[in-house]
C-alpha cells in the first residue's frame, strides 16, 4: 500500500516457493534413498504427511467455516476403503496411485455432499452430533457390510489385506503440497472469502448476497475430498485396513491438531500435525500416555492461548522477505510497516 514499500513480483514469489519445495523434496528423498534417514523414520515422515493433509482439510470445516464436524475419520475411512478396493483390483502400476487417490477423494466428497446437505442446516452442537454419528455409522457399516450383504469387499474385522503399498515419501509430500496450495488459493479467492464470511456473520453474509448454504456445502465437500485423499494414502501406506483405526478417537486426534495449531491457520495445522505425529513416535516409551498428554496439552493451550498456537496467523515467505527487504532499506528512518 505504501509507495516506497518494496514488493516482490508475483512470478518471483512463485519461483522462490517452488524452488524451496523442490529442494526440500529432493533432499529428503535423497536422504531416505541413501538410508541416511532410517526406514522407520521415513515411515513416520509419511505419516506426518498424511496427518498434515487431514488437519489442513479439517481446518476448512472448523477454522474457515466455523463449524464443528466430528466425523473426519469417517471421510478418511470412506476414501481409504474405496481406493483400497480399487487399487487391489487394478494392480500396481504408476497410475495406481493417482487413480486411487482421486477415486478415494471423489467417493469421500460424495459422502460429504450427502451428509453435508442435511447436517449443515444445523449449527454448533447439533452439527457435531450428526457428523459424529456419521463417522460411527461408517465404521460400523465397514465392519458388518460383508456379513449382511454377503460381499467380499471390506472383509470386516478380519481387515482388508494385500493393498498395494504405493505410498512413498515423494508422492505423499507432493500431495501435501498440492493440498495446501489448493486450499490456500481457494481461501484467497472470492469463494474462500465467502466461506470466511459465513464464519464471521451468517446474516450479514446473506445480506451481501452470498449463497450461504452453497458455500457451507462446498467447504464441507472440499474438506471431505482431501480427507478421502489422505485415506487412500493411508491405505497404500499400511497395506492393510481395519475399521477400528477410523474410530471416533481418530476424528478427535485430527481435531486436536487443528485446534492446537490455531483454527483458521494453515501453518498452524501443518506445524501441530507434524509435532503431534512425531512426538509420540519419538517418545515411544510414553506412547500410552499420548491421550493424557493430548488432553493436558489442549487444556493448557485453551487456557493460555484460546485461539491456538498460531491464532489465525498465516505464514508467507514472501511477506517475510518483503519485510526484511524494507527494514534494511529504512534502517535509519522509523521503520514503516505495510499493514498486517
Amino acid at each position, binding site marked *: *500500500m505504501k509507495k516506497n514499500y518494496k514488493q516482490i513480483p*508475483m512470478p518471483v514469489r512463485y519461483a522462490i516457493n517452488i524452488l524451496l519445495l523442490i529442494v526440500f523434496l529432493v533432499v529428503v528423498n535423497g536422504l531416505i534413498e541413501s538410508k541416511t534417514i532410517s526406514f522407520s523414520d521415513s515411515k513416520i515422515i509419511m505419516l506426518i504427511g498424511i496427518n498434515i493433509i487431514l488437519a489442513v482439510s479439517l481446518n476448512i470445516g472448523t477454522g474457515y467455516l466455523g463449524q464443528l464436524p466430528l466425523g473426519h475419520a469417517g471421510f478418511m475411512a470412506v476414501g481409504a476403503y474405496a481406493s483400497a478396493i480399487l487399487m487391489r483390483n487394478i494392480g500396481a502400476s504408476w497410475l495406481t496411485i493417482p487413480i486411487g487417490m482421486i477415486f478415494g477423494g471423489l467417493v469421500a466428497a460424495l459422502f460429504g455432499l450427502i451428509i453435508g446437505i442435511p447436517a449443515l442446516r444445523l449449527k454448533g452442537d447439533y452439527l457435531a452430533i450428526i457428523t459424529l454419528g456419521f463417522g460411527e455409522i461408517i465404521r460400523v457399516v465397514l465392519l458388518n457390510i460383508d456379513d449382511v450383504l454377503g460381499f467380499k469387499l471390506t472383509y470386516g474385522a478380519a481387515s482388508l489385506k494385500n493393498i498395494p503399498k504405493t505410498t512413498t515419501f515423494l508422492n505423499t509430500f507432493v500431495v501435501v503440497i498440492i493440498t495446501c496450495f*489448493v486450499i490456500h*488459493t*481457494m481461501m*484467497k*479467492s*472470492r*469463494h*474462500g*472469502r*465467502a466461506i*470466511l*464470511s459465513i*464464519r*464471521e*456473520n451468517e*446474516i*450479514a*453474509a*446473506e*445480506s*451481501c*448476497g*452470498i*449463497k*450461504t448454504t452453497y458455500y457451507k456445502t*462446498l467447504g464441507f465437500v472440499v474438506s471431505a475430498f482431501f480427507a478421502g485423499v489422505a485415506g487412500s494414502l493411508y491405505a497404500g501406506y499400511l497395506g492393510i485396513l481395519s475399521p477400528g483405526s477410523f474410530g471416533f478417537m481418530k476424528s478427535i486426534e485430527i481435531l486436536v491438531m487443528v485446534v492446537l495449531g490455531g483454527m483458521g491457520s494453515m501453518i498452524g495445522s501443518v506445524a501441530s500435525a507434524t509435532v503431534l505425529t512425531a512426538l509420540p513416535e519419538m517418545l515411544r516409551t510414553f506412547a500410552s500416555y499420548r491421550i493424557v498428554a493430548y488432553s493436558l496439552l489442549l487444556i493448557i493451550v485453551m487456557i493460555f492461548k484460546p485461539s491456538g498456537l498460531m491464532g*489465525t496467523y498465516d505464514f508467507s515467505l514472501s511477506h517475510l522477505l518483503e519485510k526484511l527487504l524494507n527494514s534494511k532499506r529504512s534502517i535509519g528512518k522509523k521503520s514503516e510497516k*505495510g*499493514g*498486517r
Partner: protein
Amino acid sequence: MSGRDLRTPIIPERDKDKTPVLECVGLGIDFGGLTAVDDFNMTIGRTEIAGLIGPNGAGKTTVFNLLTKVYKPTRGEILLEGKNTANMNTIQVNKAGIARTFQNIRLFKELTVLDNVLIGLHNEMKYDLLSAVTRLPWYWKEEKIARRRALELLSIFCMEDLAEQKAGSLPYGAQRRLEIVRALATNPSLLLLDEPAAGMNPSETGELMENIRKIRDTFKIAVLLIEHDMSLVMGICEGIVVLNYGKIIAKGDPNEVRNDPVVIEAYLGKKGDIPC
C-alpha cells in the same frame, strides 16, 4: 394537515416520471397474535432520500427485515423496480438491488477492512472455483479490478488507509461507515441504513449527512434510513414516514411531519404544548 392520505406516495419532483425503486402495498406481518406491522404503504423514488422514524418498538427495523426478506410478509406486496419480490429470499433480494446495514453492527470482525468490502463485491466477480484454484489470468484480472473498486469505495469515507486493519479493531463510527461501504459494494439501487448515526458525535453526524448525500449523487441510488437523530432526518430526508405501533401515522416532507399533531403526540404524548 387536512386530508392526509397515507396512501399517496411522496416522491420528489425529479423522480416523478420514473418507475419508483420501491413500492410497498399493504405490507404487514403478524408474529402469532401480535401484528408488528400493518397496512404499510410506501413509495420511494429513484434517487430519493427517505426517512423512516417512530418511537422505540414502532416496527421500523421489522420493516427493514420485511424488505430484505429476513421475515416473510404475512400480507401485502413489495415491488422492487416494478418487480414483485414475493418469491425471493434475502440473497436474491440483495442481487435484485437492496443492500442494508444493521442496527447492531454486523461486520466480519476478524477479517480486514478490505476483505469486508471484497465480500460485498462477491457477486461482482464472476470467476469460478477452478480458475481461482489454478490462478488463471482472469482470476488475477478480476481480483485486481475488485481490489481497486474496494479502495475506491473506501475512499468515500476516507478509509483507504485502514484497508489492512481488522474490521473489529476499528472505532465504532468507522465500523458503521464500513458497513455502509460494504452495502454499497453489492451495487444496490436502494440502500437501507438502520440508525447510521447511532453512537456518533454531532460533527461526525454532520459529516455522515454530507456523505449520504454524496453517495446518492454519485451512485444515483435511493436511500431509506431509520434514525433517531432528528437533525439528520430533518436535514437530509426528502420524504418521511412516521410509524407507531406498526402503522403509518404520518407521511410527508420534513416540515409537514415536524408540525403534524399526530406525530408530536406519538413522540411526546398528548397536550402537545412542549415545543418539538
